[in-house]
């Protein structure tokens, strides 16, 4: 039996007074937030953890009173030689990236914002990653540690700021992509990367099947790839690295130099590319990268070197899921024009049980982000 993964199905009407007052920037309100969670457990209230709201289209509106975490903000520590940044979850993502850019460093997973209000906590809770993901790693790959509030209102710290740490279960990475259903993220420590000295984008005129073959053939060679996407019969390849390394790779690959390459990848990452300006339901398929083009009606934007495929299609959900499964992948209805809330790929029953057990282990009263749909 297959069941969609939904943390809670029941509705719970609540007054919508804000549990935490707004505080000034660069502030630590861990204790207030923890007290708010404790109070909620006593009142059997439910809490909708609220950051910048930039990804509501995906998460939907969880039940209960908003627990505003945007007041919990500021970079706690950042030392470029450590390649680690620790920041409070409510810190605007733009602020974190700006601080890193000043030291010629960056978040390796190229996080999508989906809006200017995006916070670091939201980015990590959703666990989305941008075009660099297949070559540099995903959001969870870069997470080294977290501080969270669990459903009992306890402040807990897992992992840390070091590169290697096997003491205890990897709760920090479990928080990535858990959409706040296992706890309120307070702080996140992330490994960061140096900004490559040189970055260029090349284009090639190729149909989808040939593009998929090419992306994978190049990924099988020691080339400094950092993104590969295909739309409208054009394959785009990004190369990042040292000046001579990129030059040599370019000579090997050929293709046309794309003038505004950075803009292309940004538009893809933020779904601002013309492809995404459409009212047709948008599906995200996570596929084995070399899977041939999938026989579904609609238009495709292939990203992540073939491993992430965007599909605009009116095909029924069962059909999309079936095709994804047949090719060894998963499909999520990522965005609709009319309503908030994605639909993730159904989980097999054993996995759904484990999810419920884990939810209970972290949030025994089920108060956090109930009704959040969707894991991709």
């Amino acid at each position, binding site marked *: 039996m297959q069941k969609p*993964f939904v943390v809670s199905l029941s509705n719970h009407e609540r007054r919508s007074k804000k549990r935490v007052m707004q505080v000034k920037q660069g502030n630590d309100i861990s204790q207030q937030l923890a007290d708010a969670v404790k109070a909620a457990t006593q009142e059997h209230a439910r809490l909708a953890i609220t950051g910048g709201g930039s990804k509501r289209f995906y998460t939907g509106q969880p039940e209960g009173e908003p627990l505003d975490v945007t007041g919990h903000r500021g970079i706690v520590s950042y*030392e470029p*030689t*450590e390649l680690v940044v620790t920041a409070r979850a409510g810190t605007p993502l733009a602020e974190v990236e700006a601080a890193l850019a000043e030291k010629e460093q960056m978040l390796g997973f190229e996080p999508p914002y989906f809006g200017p209000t995006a916070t670091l906590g939201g980015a990590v809770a959703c*666990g989305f990653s941008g075009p660099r*993901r*297949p070559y540099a*790693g*995903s959001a969870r*790959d870069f997470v080294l540690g977290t501080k969270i509030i669990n459903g009992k209102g306890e402040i*807990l*710290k*897992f992992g*840390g*700021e*070091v*590169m*290697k*740490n*096997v*003491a*205890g*279960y*990897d*709760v920090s*990475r*479990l928080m*990535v992509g*858990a959409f706040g259903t296992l706890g309120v993220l307070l702080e996140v420590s992330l490994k960061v990367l*140096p900004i490559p000295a040189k970055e260029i984008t090349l284009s090639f005129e190729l149909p989808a099947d040939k593009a998929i073959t090419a992306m*994978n053939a190049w*990924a*099988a*060679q*020691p080339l*400094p790839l950092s993104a590969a996407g295909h739309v409208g019969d054009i394959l785009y390849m990004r190369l990042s*690295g*040292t000046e*001579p*390394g990129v030059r040599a790779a370019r000579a090997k690959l050929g293709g046309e130099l794309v003038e505004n390459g950075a803009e292309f990848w940004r538009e893809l990452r933020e779904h601002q590319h013309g492809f995404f300006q459409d009212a047709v339901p948008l599906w995200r398929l996570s*596929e084995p*990268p*070399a899977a041939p083009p999938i026989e579904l009606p609609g238009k495709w934007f292939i990203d992540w070197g073939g491993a*992430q495929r965007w599909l605009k299609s009116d095909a029924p959900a069962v059909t999309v899921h079936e095709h994804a499964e047949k090719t*060894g*992948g*998963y499909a*999520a209805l990522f965005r609709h024009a009319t309503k908030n809330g994605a639909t*993730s*790929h159904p*989980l*097999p029953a*054993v*996995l759904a049980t*484990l*999810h419920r*057990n*884990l939810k209970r*282990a972290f949030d025994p009263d089920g108060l956090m982000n109930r009704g959040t749909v969707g*894991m991709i």
Partner: protein
Amino acid sequence: MSAARPSIPPETARQSLARRLREFLPRESVLTDAEDLRPYECDGLSAYRKLPWIVALPETVEQVGRILKLCRREHISVVARGAGTGLSGGALPLEDGVLLSLAKFTRILEVDPANRTATVEPGVRNLAITDAAAPYGFYYAPDPSSQLACSIGGNVAENSGGVHCLKYGLTVHNVLGLKFFTMDGELVTLGGKTLDAPGYDLLALMTGSEGMLGVIVEITVKLLPKPERAQVVLAAFDDIAKAGAAVAAIIAGGFVPAGLEMMDNLAIRAAEEYAKAGYPVDAVAILLCELDGTQEEVAAGIAQVRELLTRQGATGVRTAKDEAERLRMWAGRKAAFPAVGRLAPDYYCMDGTIPRKHLAKVLARISALSREHGLPVANVFHAGDGNLHPLILYDANKPGELKNAEELGGKILELCVAVGGTITGEHGVGVEKINQMCVQFTKQELAQFHALKAAFDPDGLLNPGKAVPKPARCAEFGRMHVHGGKLKFPELERF
């Protein structure tokens, strides 16, 4: 074992369980005689030994499921075992439980060159994956120095690391899919050949869970293309603080070396004598920095790194002139543990990780502690990711020296935690560091770990007593000791 079973079950119970296991396992795959059980009494940390009650050696996935179902029903504990090279006693058996060996699961199920993955059984040796991938120009990146012997199942259970992990990530970054059994005997599939899968990131959670959450029966790993070129630079320093600062400068300079290792004078001299690597024996510290990538990248990078090291006050900088010299430079590093082991009757290996910025301070403090305790400490470690392996030299036959070494080791681990680090970077907690978990985590955090464990294994039947201390335990201390170099697998390098 569970609290409900206060004493060791009698022989009749053992024979009855063995009989029931033999209903679906070949006779010779269920061991109960002492001499058959002996090889399973410890893992790589041989200071801890216990004869298992029963050893089961299944050959099929279905058999693993049946063993677990039977044990769950009978409320019998199970410890999974890979190759038994673990250094923290994670696979230490139980005197009243089943030791479930995955040793017979040695098949490489598939190498998929198009998707750059390998799907393997859990008992496959780490290096065997790279061997199977090599014809396609690929390799499996995480390279623990036990890679000749250790199993991929054990690697996943420990989230093992190696020299290459600085650039290519730990096991957790290189696993795409898993199949595992819960203690209920339910088969769970996570991920596959995709880069992500719906739901909570159980793949990350399973990695490094030390056999506490499930028994892994299949693993899909990511394969990487072999780099075109690798080149190493050796830099000598007359001051350990300068060497530490150089590590920080390399990282800050935007380099991501394929390996960045440090050795102090004691380790240099020992390794040079043992392996004739061509190290400068008068140096206070050396750094080995390897870059890999395309010809052009490596050539440009090496020139820059050389310059940087000189600026950082290196007294000598040398690039391997050919592949043979490169391998010789690494051979010295890789032989450092056994080499140091020859300097004293016993040594005690630590595995703390610290933020790199504290390298100089922590090394100075370790050296002061070493003087205070009158015991030499050699340092040879993964400087690039701050993973220390201080080796405390002592002689267990001298009265009080063992205790002295333990105290010194304890202070070093506390120092690691105090500067924001951790008690274990890659060897795991197991039984060895279970008490130090109390230093690193609060009561609530430990309780959260137990709750998480119960989500998978409510009766606590999988690998009980390991990895996470019960509140009552948080007073004792346990340590790893190497007596007379008698760590198992002496033929392998130690990191």
